[in-house]
């Protein structure tokens, strides 16, 4: 049972990481706290809901193609938002960022509700991932294990991009010293747009991947953004490894808490968050996305 609970925690942590990584990536480079990140997640989930029946319902490849297409569409929307609106407020007062991104949250929420209604919808799970691996009386659910594997793939892909490609070098440079990168003749705007596209893609991907496992409705945006912020506070906003560690800590703490201190499981997470903030007064700002 402890083992299953540990697995549960890791799996929830991985989903949290997929959400938080985009948020932290965007903050690391653009210094924008994107409240609409949860909305991108929600759109990823709803688009997957629409696409799964159109492509190849029930099949594994159909599901992943639907998720990838949804994430790409969300990413395109993110680029549109970045180039038309966000670009105008870089470096401006924080309150302006808040107003603009929260406005987007409200707009997307109302559009989603107009399109898909207020009731929850269910996304069909691929047949191959239904059910569980059964060992004696112990069940390991297949779907979250597959999501964990997909998440791990994304982690490795991100590490590869950030450390071993020119884009990654520019990204790291942009995080460390934006002015210097611009002086060297690199198109800073392009970096910002690319990072925003990647962040929105990750959010859409997380939304699509998680869709069959929970309920998809128009309130998903706020549910998700709160968890993502908790993860980022623990890990340090702008710090990718921190986000990974924070996400896994939150997931495992919650799972173990439910098992051993059911009354305290939520409090435990906030206690860790408070401890991190006290121990590292830099916590909120975090380190650079190295």
């Amino acid at each position: 049972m402890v083992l299953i609970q540990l697995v549960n925690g890791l799996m929830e942590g991985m989903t949290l990481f997929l959400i938080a990584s985009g948020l932290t990536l965007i903050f690391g480079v653009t210094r924008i706290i994107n409240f609409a990140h949860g909305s991108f997640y929600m759109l990823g989930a709803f688009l997957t809901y629409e696409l799964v029946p159109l492509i190849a319902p029930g099949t594994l490849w159909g599901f992943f193609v639907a998720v990838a297409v949804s994430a790409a569409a969300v990413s395109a929307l993110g680029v549109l938002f970045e180039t038309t609106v966000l670009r105008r407020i870089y470096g401006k007062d924080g309150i302006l960022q808040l107003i603009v991104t929260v406005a987007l949250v409200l707009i997307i929420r109302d559009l989603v509700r107009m399109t898909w209604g207020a009731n929850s919808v269910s996304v069909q799970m691929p047949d191959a991932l239904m059910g569980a691996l059964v060992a004696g009386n112990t069940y390991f659910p297949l779907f979250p294990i597959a999501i964990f594997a997909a998440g791990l793939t994304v982690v490795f892909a991100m590490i590869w991009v950030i450390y071993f490609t020119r884009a990654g070098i520019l990204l790291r440079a942009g995080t460390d010293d934006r002015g210097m990168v611009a002086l060297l003749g690199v198109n800073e705007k392009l970096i910002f747009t690319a990072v925003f596209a990647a962040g929105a893609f990750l959010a859409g991907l997380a939304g699509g991947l998680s869709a069959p496992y929970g309920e998809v409705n128009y309130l998903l945006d706020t549910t998700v953004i709160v968890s993502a912020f908790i993860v980022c506070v623990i890990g340090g906003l702008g710090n990718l490894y921190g986000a990974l560690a924070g996400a896994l800590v939150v997931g495992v703490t919650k799972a173990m808490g439910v098992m051993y201190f059911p009354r305290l499981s939520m409090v435990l997470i906030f206690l860790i968050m408070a401890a991190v903030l006290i121990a590292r007064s830099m916590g909120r700002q975090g380190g650079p996305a190295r």
Partner: protein
Amino acid sequence: MLEKNKKAVVAVALAALATSAGAQDGPVKVGFAADLTGACAALSEDGLNGAKIAAEEINAVGGILGRQVELIVRDTQTKPDEGAKVARDLITNDRIDVLTGVCSSAVMLAESAVSAELKVPFYAAIGSTQRANIELFQPYFWQVQANATMEAYAAAEYVAKKPEWEKISALGSDYEWGHTSVAAFTERLKELRPDIAFADPIYAKVGETAMAPYITATLAQQPDAVFAPLFGPSLGATLKQGQGFGFFQKTNLVTLMTVDTLQSQGASMPAANVYGIARAPFFALEQSPEVTAFIETYRAAYGEYPTDWAINAYDGLHFYAAVAEKAGTVEAEAIIAALPQVSFDGLREKGLTIRALDGQMNAPVYVGKAAKVEGYDFPILTEVEKFEGAPLMPAEDLILQAREAAR
């Protein structure tokens, strides 16, 4: 001189009569202060749809006491303070005759307080906290569905009839409704089946969708059945995620399962071992001409089957109309006086009445087994057992005791 004064008095009196007669001629205003956005949006929308059909039907046969019914709809955003504000505005500015529409228990209690203060009748057809009947009861309030305690009692009655279930766990939402439901369920089941063992209840935070850790912790208790006062996203997540843990092979789930939940689950519903508690499942009602006509009207208007919320809101408005006809006026005191005297034939059943002590209707509760059935593209409840409302209503002396204790 005296004659002149007399004339003036008569003129004033006549003028006063004329204005009050004017008010009597206008529509009967129903203030629909509903949770149209926020967590309760889906349920409230269904309730509004049901009430709209009821209003049209009442108007088609001449209205209430010859006056047309007008629904004045406002959004409370599922926030108690906003609900109180909207209720106050509807009463003082729109001069409504009756207030309804609410879904969330917290908003319901806030609106009930305004109804008590401004002495305007208020009824609930979705929100169902028993606190509105017991500790926080006020004479202008009634509710037209079984309250949360009655639902938990019905679940206990149902579970008690399963001799093979000897150990019971509870998995609830971590707020008032979850806790009081588990307490009422446990209390009634202990009376009915002293042999049953109860595990420590487990509570998940409201709106939680990552249910896997809770499912695992519940299964670790090795229960024969799990009573789960969960709703919305948490319930849907439990049904989906539980399958990966063999939840529905290892144990049985007894939970709230209204038509909207059944519809949103679709193909994801576990094949067996899910038992649903419902308030007004259209497929399990006695298919009288009234019921089938309502289902058809509703489908024609909104393109879907009516949910429990739609049916109760529909019944609720028709019941109000019946009470007003009995009272001969929509004046608040007369409505309240007429309330317990009306026996109402609703869609759910005949002979529905309100108990004056707590404003509770003897509304039935339905419990059945979720299954896929030919003819519907979503699972429904089968082998449905209907529990009459009256035996589920908390005894009068218990209510008085609880009120005394709360004071």
